[in-house]
């Protein structure tokens, strides 16, 4: 592996192209830019093999190549090296391909016909963003967890989920899809803590008149002791797992008493779906004895790479 990169140190650009002539041409253009070292690979598979040994700061790839094309390489780099941006070199003037490149996850693209005028600027722009993110990523590597004590206010929940999504991405706990799954589970746990824990609202109440239920939410949100209660979130990331502990100050509940929401007889009822999603998307869901604290466990995805 390369040593941890200093923000001001050299950046390594991996040029991937099956044509030796094009590789030399692109390498020659980039050689004019300061603080850039260049590495080469002949196709996507070779690039990934190389990245497993020495991780570049940026990948610059041709689109049409044998074995693995530029789109496939972009998707694979995004999955395995999420902090390494990819720039695609596209055929001349094909906007459709450029759009597809960005949708695939490329950070940018350069038409091959305009390499001389656009390549260096594009690479430097993407590098400046990537280096900042990589420094942030290294900082997040030093983070082993976080804690929040939030007011009993439902509008805080989406903000916290947004933060946690970034936290999961930056700590590379899991890939993007599993990060979304984890956030689904966290959101359910936080909503449970707010509505059913601190406000002590039975989910059966949601089966009745919606206006009555909303009035009750509103009333309890303003009334003591419900109003004064808080939600405690404790996140710990180790080498093997992420552990999200969420505790409310309500009297707790017995999770075994919830109906099976997938039973056809219960499909229309709102009870139990949140816990079902938590159990589906997390590796472990553990309640304390009182039932007012849930710990959601996500094991580290070992296919994730440190990235840079």
């Amino acid at each position, binding site marked *: 592996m390369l040593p941890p990169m200093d923000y001001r140190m050299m950046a390594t650009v991996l040029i991937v192209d099956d044509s030796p002539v094009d590789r030399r041409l692109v390498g020659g253009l980039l050689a004019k830019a300061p603080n850039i070292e260049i590495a080469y690979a002949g196709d996507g598979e070779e690039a990934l093999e190389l990245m497993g040994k020495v991780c570049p700061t940026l990948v610059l790839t041709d689109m049409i190549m044998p074995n693995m094309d530029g789109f496939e390489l972009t998707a694979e780099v995004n999955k395995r090296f999420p902090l390494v941006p990819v720039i695609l070199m596209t055929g001349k003037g094909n906007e459709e391909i450029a759009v597809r490149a960005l949708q695939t996850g490329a950070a940018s693209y350069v038409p091959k016909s305009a390499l001389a005028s656009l390549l260096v600027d594009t690479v430097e722009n993407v590098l400046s963003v990537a280096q900042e993110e990589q420094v942030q990523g290294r900082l997040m590597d030093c983070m082993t967890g976080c804690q929040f004590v939030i007011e009993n206010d439902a509008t805080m929940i989406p903000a916290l989920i947004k933060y946690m999504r970034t936290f999961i991405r930056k700590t590379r706990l899991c890939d993007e899809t599993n990060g979304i799954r984890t956030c689904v589970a966290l959101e359910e746990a936080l909503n449970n803590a707010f509505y059913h824990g601190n406000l002590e609202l039975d989910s059966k109440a949601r089966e009745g008149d919606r206006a009555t239920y909303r009035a009750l939410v509103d009333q309890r949100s303003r009334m003591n002791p419900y109003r004064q209660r808080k939600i405690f979130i404790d996140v710990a990331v180790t080498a093997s797992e992420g552990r999200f502990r969420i505790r409310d100050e309500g009297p707790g509940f017995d999770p075994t008493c919830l109906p099976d929401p997938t039973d056809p007889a219960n499909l229309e009822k709102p009870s139990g779906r949140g816990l079902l*999603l938590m159990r589906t998307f997390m590796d472990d869901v553990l309640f304390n004895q009182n039932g007012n604290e849930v710990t959601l466990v996500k094991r580290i995805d070992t296919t994730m790479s440190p990235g840079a």
Partner: protein
Amino acid sequence: MSSPKFFRVERNDHALIISAIANTHGLVEDEVRDECDSLLEQLEENESKHAIIDLEALDYFGSIMLELMVVVWKAVNKSGGKFAVCGVSKVGLEILKTAKFDTIWPILDTQEAAIENVNS
């Protein structure tokens, strides 16, 4: 009722198309419930027989959205209409399957396919 934050509503012949809006601040349960009431009113006012929920803009959702979909589905069912869901993300589909809603709701790739489904 303030302006809608979570759903955009359009009418297509006999169907009300309810499209989730990408909301960077996430879904707040109370606010979703408020909009849900408005959706039901629009179903009645527009005399729409069918309803389509388009989730294209969301990369995921949770039990709040599921509950809203159940409410709309029940309202449509009551008046003999059809209900369909479209534009579901990978994780969204997992959520629908986990809750077994894929067994009772048609889940289509596109809004056009959903319109064709409810009008068939």
